[in-house]
């Protein structure tokens, strides 16, 4: 069963990922994704009923920090790489709300 990826899907994924593709890129993307998904469909051959999805390989849990202030004012460092900044803040095109 071949996956068919439509323009609508690529557009949708583009919104999710904030990516804008040219017409050619879109065509290629549709093919690539369809191929990948066909390949990934191979996983359906596996019977995974009753198998818990495993996020972490080791059963480590409860890694915590104590509630103690350690960090100070490092604003200059934090803003060092900002493409645009003003008044100690990062500057971006205006947001709607």
């Amino acid at each position: 069963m071949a996956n068919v990826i439509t323009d609508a899907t690529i557009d949708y994924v583009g919104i999710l990922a904030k990516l804008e593709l040219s017409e050619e890129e879109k065509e290629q993307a549709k093919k690539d994704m369809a191929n990948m998904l066909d390949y990934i469909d191979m996983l359906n051959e596996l019977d995974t009923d009753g198998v818990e999805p495993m996020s972490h390989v080791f059963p480590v849990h409860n890694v915590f920090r104590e509630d103690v202030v350690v960090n100070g004012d490092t604003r200059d460092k934090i803003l060092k790489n900002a493409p645009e900044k003003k008044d100690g803040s990062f500057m971006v095109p205006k947001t709607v709300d």
Partner: protein
Amino acid sequence: MSLFNMTAVELGKKIKAGEISVAQACQAALEQIKATEKELNCYVKVLDENQIMERAAKVQAQIDAGELTGPLAGVPVAIKDNMCTEGITTTCSSKILYNFNPTFSSEAVLNLERAGAVILGKTNMDEFAMGSTTETSYFGETKNPWNTEHVPGGSSGGSAAAVAAGECFYALGSDTGGSIRQPASFCGIVGMKPTYGTVSRYGLIAYGSSLDQIGPMTKDVTDCAAVLETIASYDSKDSTSFRREDYDFTSALVDDVKGLKIGIPKDYFGDGLDPEVRDAVLKAVKVLEEKGAIVEEFNLTMVPYAIPAYYVIASAEASSNLSRFDGVKYGYRSEDFNGLHNMYKKTRSEGFGAEVKRRIMLGSFVLSSGYYDAYYLKALRTKALIKQEFDQAFQKYDIIIGPAAPTTAPKLGASLSDPLKMYLGDIYTISVNLAGLPGISVPCGRDKQGLPIGIQMLADCFHEKTLIRAAYSYEQARGAFDVCPAQKGVD
């Protein structure tokens, strides 16, 4: 032996004994860089000579004062460009981070610096570690020092090539699906991915968070163990860092494999494996058998499922990890945009290369509404089965052996047109990351074209010492490996 051909540990000894100065060591590396870097393009950035010499002087002073006594003190190193280095641009070989100057260093780098390492520069890689050839770098491809018409492998191709060409004495790479082991095999050097959680990921710019590990790329197994011992540590800044019981990996440099149980997965030696690679690997296995190891074939049936599971999981995590690159806080921002969301789209579309975009889109898709169960959860269940299978295998065997890659290094330009085919090349390395196992690639031969072949050894989680012992024993029996052509003609 000339300074130039020394391993890191050998050099470290000489420096400690006062026979060679740190400055001399750095000069040697810089000379080689001058000779070959233009053609090979191993580095994204070589540090300014003055900067290097300044650091060399500091380290020398500390060594002389008896403050630095470790095996790597004064030895020059190259760092893959996805590890943050304070004050040194860190780009992940991407346009979107072309000018990013981190305000802190990775824990692994800090560990090296505390041990007296001198950083020569940041090495080239596949953009954001996504690739197997280092051809997706924004800063141009790196060439394989054994044959410059071929790729060095990826994504740690720059690091592998730099070590092979003598442009550094050792390097750090990162491995998410084989990105240390495969380029190590293509470039005829040793590369190791430790057990997940052994080396802190703090400061490693994330690709697939549940899979990424930093590891050594070195001239031999002794260096590999020494580097691992230096960079491995428990880090409270990384919630996935594992507090291991012992870190003295160099104690495993023992030439003894008597009774070592080696498993050879039949599924690793089927179709698609280059016959020369197969022969070289099996020959190496024979060497170990002759030294007293017990070799047995077995079934590792989950092998084919590792690749689709990996690509679902890695691309899903990557799609989220790379969301932060948006032109707001650092890096590239598009010049020409209309409004906020357009800025995001233009910045990311212009800043990311094709392979990165491909994986971000795939990752976003498999996590999206309606597909999460079918793809992502399914992949996580597959991962559980893969881990189970390895757990069972390691009840019987101490080491599992296979090739590091199905072929030797392909030609430049041959791989990118068929991404799926390229992904299939990861077949031997990928399940190791899914299961969190340690794995090492050691050079074991060369093909008819003279391109290196690597043998990959895997051990159970937290069993690096078994791995090191097996690799070291093999290396001792193998003897010296050929010298890379890029190194000839210097000295």
